[in-house]
């Protein structure tokens, strides 16, 4: 029998999000569905590289740890789970979970896998595509390309659940679509039902960053208090077939969910509120209002939808050289002057070694590292840390940065302590292109127990 209302919880809002609140919402949230969003813009590029090294890998590294905690209590309660932890290898993720599931006490479950978001071959066939960031042709990135994935919509998630699956594992899917998918499946909403798509997308947008809706990223002591921030609970949405939505959080958990937290999260990573583009619809949130209907429970009103665009966004990951960095601390009398001398010494040593950098950034942590204000315009603190970071195509030059900073311990100004050499990190940058929807043909594949 079709339900008139479903409840969808958020179990994770980024790859390394805290696991205990995810378990808590499964156990106490009285959920029908659980969605876990674990793919940032560029993480899939790193996971594509993992897969090249080992074809069984390429899923989100924390997959098994998270699933061991979440899957058994979810299956026990009949909660259906969707996650994009498949990353660059959704089928590999499904098989890895299956390998361990019996030992976790989950002998029987159905798992559907969404494939088809990977489009690197298409990118090679279309070097003429214009990059959204600067209009340059995609061609310039192709020699350095590490990954290319299209943002799929909620329809593939709904198709996954339509197989009777208890667990749907995807690669790149738009974040709100992980939440809209269960609604399409449960209520059969169609793609010309713009306002319901908009309401569901709004709900997904609010939920997809987990604790950011429920008092995370919010507390300011003495100004904006959050009760039991340590015990912050994850959010859930009650969605009715007619498109009504109320958001709340795990009963008994810490945090707060009210008009203020909803307003902040509505505008999080949103540019023009009248045109928030997803693969499923264009959400017009410019007239959204929030109504506090009970403690930690807010009803959403005013979301409008416009038809989905004829294109899908593809994020292309590419190699962009290396970043090297290091830090060193100074405290007490004349600390800032000693830190500044340390900076000059490191720059001069790198210069005498003949090393050059595309860009170098110098911060005095404690004075100007976050807001990059003029360090001569802020009061001198008791202690300060110098930080030097630089980008270069040359790995050895990148490694030299942190090494020279750390050498200040013995060959720098007096009283240099707490040095750290962060080494060299390969930079995986991302840019985007739009492609016609018809170029992508996602498929649902059942993962079979071996």
């Amino acid at each position, binding site marked *: 029998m079709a339900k008139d209302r479903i409840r969808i919880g958020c179990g994770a809002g980024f790859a390394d999000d805290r696991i205990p609140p995810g378990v808590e919402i499964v156990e106490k949230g009285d959920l029908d569905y659980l969605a876990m969003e674990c793919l940032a813009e560029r993480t899939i590029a790193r996971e594509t590289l993992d897969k090249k090294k080992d074809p069984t890998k390429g899923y989100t590294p924390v997959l098994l740890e998270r699933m061991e905690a979440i899957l058994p209590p979810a299956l026990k309660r009949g909660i259906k789970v969707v996650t994009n932890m498949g990353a660059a290898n959704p089928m590999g993720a499904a098989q890895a979970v299956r390998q361990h599931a019996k030992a976790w006490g989950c002998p029987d479950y159905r798992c559907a896998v969404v494939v088809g978001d990977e489009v690197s071959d298409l990118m090679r066939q279309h070097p003429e595509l214009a990059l959204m960031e600067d209009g340059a042709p995609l061609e310039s990135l192709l020699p350095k390309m590490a990954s290319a994935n299209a943002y799929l919509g909620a329809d593939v998630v709904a198709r996954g659940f339509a197989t009777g699956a208890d667990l749907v594992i995807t690669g790149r899917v738009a974040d709100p679509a992980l939440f809209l998918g269960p609604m399409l499946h449960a209520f059969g909403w169609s793609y010309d039902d713009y306002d319901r798509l908009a309401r569901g997308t709004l709900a997904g947008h609010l939920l997809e960053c987990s604790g950011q809706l429920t008092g995370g990223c919010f507390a300011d002591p003495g100004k904006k208090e959050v009760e039991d921030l340590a015990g912050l609970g994850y959010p859930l949405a009650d969605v009715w077939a007619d498109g009504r939505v109320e958001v709340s959080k795990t009963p008994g958990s810490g945090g707060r969910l009210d008009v203020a937290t909803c307003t902040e999260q509505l505008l999080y990573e949103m540019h023009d*509120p009248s045109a928030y583009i997803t693969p499923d619809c264009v959400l017009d949130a410019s007239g959204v209002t929030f109504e506090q209907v009970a403690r930690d429970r807010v009803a959403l009103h005013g979301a409008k939808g416009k038809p989905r665009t004829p294109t899908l966004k593809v994020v292309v990951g590419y190699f962009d050289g290396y970043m090297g960095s290091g830090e060193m601390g100074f405290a007490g009398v004349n600390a800032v002057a000693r830190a500044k001398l340390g900076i000059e010494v490191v720059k001069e040593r790198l210069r005498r070694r003949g090393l050059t950098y595309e860009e170098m950034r110098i911060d005095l942590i404690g004075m100007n590292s976050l807001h990059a204000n003029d360090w001569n315009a802020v009061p001198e603190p008791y202690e300060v840390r110098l930080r030097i970071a630089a980008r270069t195509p040359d790995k050895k030059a990148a490694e030299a940065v942190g090494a020279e900073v750390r050498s200040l311990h013995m060959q720098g100004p007096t009283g240099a302590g707490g040095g750290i050499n962060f080494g060299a990190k390969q930079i995986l940058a991302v840019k985007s292109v739009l492609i016609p929807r018809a170029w992508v043909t996602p498929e649902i594949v059942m993962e079979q127990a071996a």
Partner: protein
Amino acid sequence: MSVRVYDLAHARAGDKGNTSNISVTAYDQAGFDVLRRELTAEVVLAHFRHLGAGPVRRYELPQLRALNFVIENALGGGVTRSLAIDPHGKSLSALMLTIAVPGHNEGA
């Protein structure tokens, strides 16, 4: 009398590529009226220009007493390649709140 944005509103910063967006939500209608009048895109740009940022667009959501500022080129070349210690610019919401604007008794 000038007043800090901090005293009138709360803020949250998000990132997309090299663009930061910062919402400013007033605690009450009087505060929103001041911010809507005084916290223009030009004023915000003046406080973010040293980051290399700009242009700035402002969107108004009066029913939520909120303004949304979209600040291009604020993230050191973009989250994935920035050399900044806070490449996402999560802390830039606090920079927004330090801006001082003319208070309730002026400008109207």
